[in-house]
């Protein structure tokens, strides 16, 4: 742990239950943006505050793999100049962190893997490029489950991330570093990616706001691919308003991603305050069945009651094939992963074994040394599912079930505007408690996977505590309904203060 830097004038221990005025790191992106605009603070000062907090607290939390201190201060100085020249937008000068699977030119991009421990990205991902072009400051790259495979952030070559609310708990995964960094106020916001819940579940477990947009809304160019038909990038923030600000920068068509959709991007902040009068919320009966922790259920029901006060109607809906999301996902995702990860051959980039005796030995030992256990498991399952004679029984069958799951949602949306439920059956579990039982870990993804299979947008907003750990409400919308989800999240945050609570760090 490094000594206190002289620029850190704010109280280091801060809890929202006290009466102190908010220090700058406890403000939202929207508030920081106004403070930068008024000259109350400079981006260099704001960036330095976060860098100092990272130095003080992240040794323990482990949310960053790489801190790009010099680059951040350089970008902050450029942002201050840009603002002085009258060319600023809402993200100019805001310090953010990027999940370490976005390629960042000249900066290590490890994907949480030994395979890419030596990989300096030769090009910039579309998402991080958009933040750079908007004048946002990159503080560094965040820890994650290796190749985004995991729900606990225990599968990282760089060690597990700890939940800032309770360091014996997982932060969730795979975007656990991004979630923990935002929750611990080590970054104003962060990017994440969500293939089966990897933004929503860690956001839920860390008490922050996280959105997975519609499949194709945000470019995947320069994201290290896990399951290409499911992967989608999104914002992780302290409020729905901040998620709207970040999504304004992230969303949009990109020629470089052949699955990116050419669909108009609205101003996501413009409709945040719209009334919820007459909104119909569907509650899938399958999401409130056996297996859901009673304290989590209570918090979700309390949140829904809050929506009724805001003028919404609630009705029960059914997603009859919901339980099939687990088998379908755990065929499709590993199958696509086995194909995507075949590029790691030890020849062109990434880890190479010592003294290969022939080409086959080079492939096998480079891959076996470079990949961790869970990644190898998924590659083997995926290779099996795609191998001769099994394709129809596994991959094709899973893609057929995927259609049934998507059609369930389309049918449910004939009766309601949005769907609400939990993100996970429990609040964050203890580090180590499930790491030897992959199947048990997979089962905990029950409420998030089907949203990816159906390509829908989903938002998690903080909605209370269960067993002294945060719980998020999951709000699922129709394709391209991000603006409505953010409006629904924002109105809840105007009426409640769960999103303003932050862990006391020691």
């Amino acid at each position: 742990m490094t000594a206190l830097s002289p620029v850190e004038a704010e109280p280091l221990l801060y809890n929202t239950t006290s009466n102190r005025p908010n220090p700058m790191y406890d403000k939202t992106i929207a508030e920081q943006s106004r403070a930068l605009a008024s000259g109350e603070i400079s981006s260099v000062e704001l960036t330095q505050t976060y860098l100092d907090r990272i130095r003080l607290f992240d040794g323990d939390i482990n949310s960053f793999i790489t801190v790009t201190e010099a680059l951040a201060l350089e970008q902050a100085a450029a942002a201050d100049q840009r603002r002085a020249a009258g060319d600023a937008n809402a993200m100019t000068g805001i310090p953010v962190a990027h999940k370490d699977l976005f390629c960042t030119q000249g900066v290590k991009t490890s994907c949480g893997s030994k395979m890419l421990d030596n990989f300096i990205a030769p090009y910039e991902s579309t998402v991080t490029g958009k933040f750079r072009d908007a004048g946002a400051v990159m503080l560094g790259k965040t820890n994650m489950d290796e190749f985004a495979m995991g729900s606990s952030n225990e599968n990282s070559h760089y060690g597990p991330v700890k939940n800032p609310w309770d360091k014996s708990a997982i932060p969730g995964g795979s975007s656990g570093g991004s979630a923990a960094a935002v929750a611990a106020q080590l970054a104003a916001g962060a990017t994440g990616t969500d293939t089966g819940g990897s933004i929503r579940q860690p956001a839920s477990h860390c008490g922050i706001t996280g959105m997975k947009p519609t499949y194709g809304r945000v470019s995947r160019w320069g994201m290290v691919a896990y399951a290409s038909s499911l992967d989608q990038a999104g914002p992780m923030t302290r409020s729905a308003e901040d998620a709207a600000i970040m999504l304004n920068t992230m969303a949009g068509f990109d020629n470089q991603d052949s699955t990116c959709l050419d669909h108009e991007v609205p101003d996501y902040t413009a409709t945040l305050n719209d009334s919820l009068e007459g909104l119909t919320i569907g509650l899938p009966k399958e999401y409130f069945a056996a297996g859901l922790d009673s304290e989590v259920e209570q918090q979700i029901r309390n949140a829904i009651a809050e929506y009724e006060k805001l003028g919404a109607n609630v009705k029960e809906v059914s997603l009859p094939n919901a339980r099939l999301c687990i088998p379908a996902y755990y065929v499709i995702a590993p199958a696509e992963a086995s194909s995507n990860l075949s590029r790691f051959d030890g020849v062109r980039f990434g880890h190479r074994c010592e003294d290969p005796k022939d080409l086959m030995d080079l492939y096998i030992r480079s891959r076996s040394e470079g990949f961790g256990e869970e990644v190898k498991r998924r590659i083997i399952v995926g290779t099996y599912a795609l191998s001769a004679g099994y394709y129809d029984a596994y991959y094709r069958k899973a893609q057929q079930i995927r259609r049934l799951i998507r059609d369930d949602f389309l049918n449910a949306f004939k009766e309601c505007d949005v769907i609400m439920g939990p993100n996970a059956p429990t609040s964050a579990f203890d580090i180590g408690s499930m790491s030897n039982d992959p199947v048990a870990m997979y089962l905990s993804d029950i409420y998030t996977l089907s949203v990816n299979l159906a390509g829908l947008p989903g938002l998690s907003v903080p909605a209370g505590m269960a067993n002294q750990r945060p719980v998020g409400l999951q709000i699922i919308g129709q394709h391209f309904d991000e603006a409505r989800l953010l409006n629904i999240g924002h109105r809840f945050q105007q009426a409640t203060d769960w999103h303003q609570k932050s862990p006391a760090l020691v």
Partner: protein
Amino acid sequence: MAIDASGVKKVAKLARLSIDDDAVEVTAATISSILELVDSMQAVDTLGVEPLAHPLDAIQRLRPDQVTEENQREQLQGCAPAVEEGLFLVPRVIE
């Protein structure tokens, strides 16, 4: 469907992975438990259901057949484990 030790070794080889001999039984048991989980799909009648490749049923977009990339060989080979005169080096393939 369960998979045994030799089955796991065979699939691992297809995926260019090796599994240590002392770990192969445990790996086979874990992979079998995952396959058992996904086999619950087999009970579902999907006769006549079209597989879903893209959730919005979008089709692959094609671009004009024109060269748009610049040659960035040196930059791209900057992160390669071994290169010589613009070529990636690997162990001898042809004797």
